[in-house]
C-alpha cells in the first residue's frame, strides 16, 4: 500500500455523483440552480439550495418540505427538515446516500483510469477494487 485516506464528511464533493446517488435511491426529478428557495420551510427560517428535490415531485413520501443540497466550500450539504428526516425519509437517509455516492465515485474512478471494477459485500462493508 502506498497511500491511505478516510472520508467521513457528510458533504458531497461532486454534484454529478450526488445526482447519480439520488437517482439510485429513487429521486430522479431534481431541480438545479443557484440559491433556489426551498418550499415548505417557515418564512422566518427560509432556506435556499442549489440542488432541490421538490416535495410535489415525490408525493409518495408525503414530505413537509423540499429536500435541498446547498453548495459550500466543502461540497454539497443537505438541507432537510428534521421531521422529514425522522419520520418520512428515515434517519439513515444521508448514510444511504453516502453509500451510493461512494459507489458512484468508485465507478467514476474506474472509468477515468480505464480500469476494471470488482465489488463484493463482506458483512456490513462494501469492498470495491479498481484495478488499472
Amino acid at each position: 500500500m502506498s497511500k491511505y485516506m478516510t472520508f467521513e464528511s457528510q458533504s458531497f464533493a461532486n454534484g454529478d455523483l450526488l445526482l447519480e446517488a439520488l437517482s439510485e435511491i429513487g429521486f430522479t426529478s431534481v431541480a438545479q440552480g443557484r440559491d433556489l428557495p426551498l418550499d415548505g420551510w417557515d418564512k422566518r427560517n427560509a432556506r435556499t439550495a442549489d440542488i432541490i428535490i421538490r416535495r410535489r415531485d415525490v408525493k409518495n413520501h408525503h414530505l413537509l418540505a423540499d429536500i435541498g443540497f446547498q453548495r459550500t466550500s466543502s461540497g454539497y450539504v443537505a438541507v432537510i427538515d428534521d421531521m422529514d428526516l425522522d419520520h418520512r425519509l428515515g434517519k439513515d437517509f444521508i448514510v444511504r446516500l453516502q453509500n451510493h455516492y461512494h459507489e458512484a465515485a468508485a465507478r467514476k474512478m474506474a472509468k477515468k483510469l480505464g480500469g476494471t471494477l470488482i465489488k463484493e459485500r463482506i458483512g456490513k462493508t462494501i469492498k470495491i477494487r479498481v484495478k488499472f
Partner: protein
Amino acid sequence: MAEIEFSIDTQTGNCETKINGIQGPNCEQTARMLKQVLGTPTTDRKTPEFHARQTPKRLVGANE
C-alpha cells in the same frame, strides 16, 4: 498492477480508500483525483511504500 481499494461502511457511510502499487508522484496524482470526487479526507497517510525508491538495476559487464 495498481489498485484503489474502497471500503464503504454501510452503517456509517464512511469510506476508506487505499491506493496500492503506485509510488511517489503517480500516487499523489491518483490521490488528487480521489479527493476531487470524495472531498477532503479526514485521514491522509502515506505508507512506507510511497517513499520507496526503485533500486537501479545493476549492469553486469562481460568482464565481471
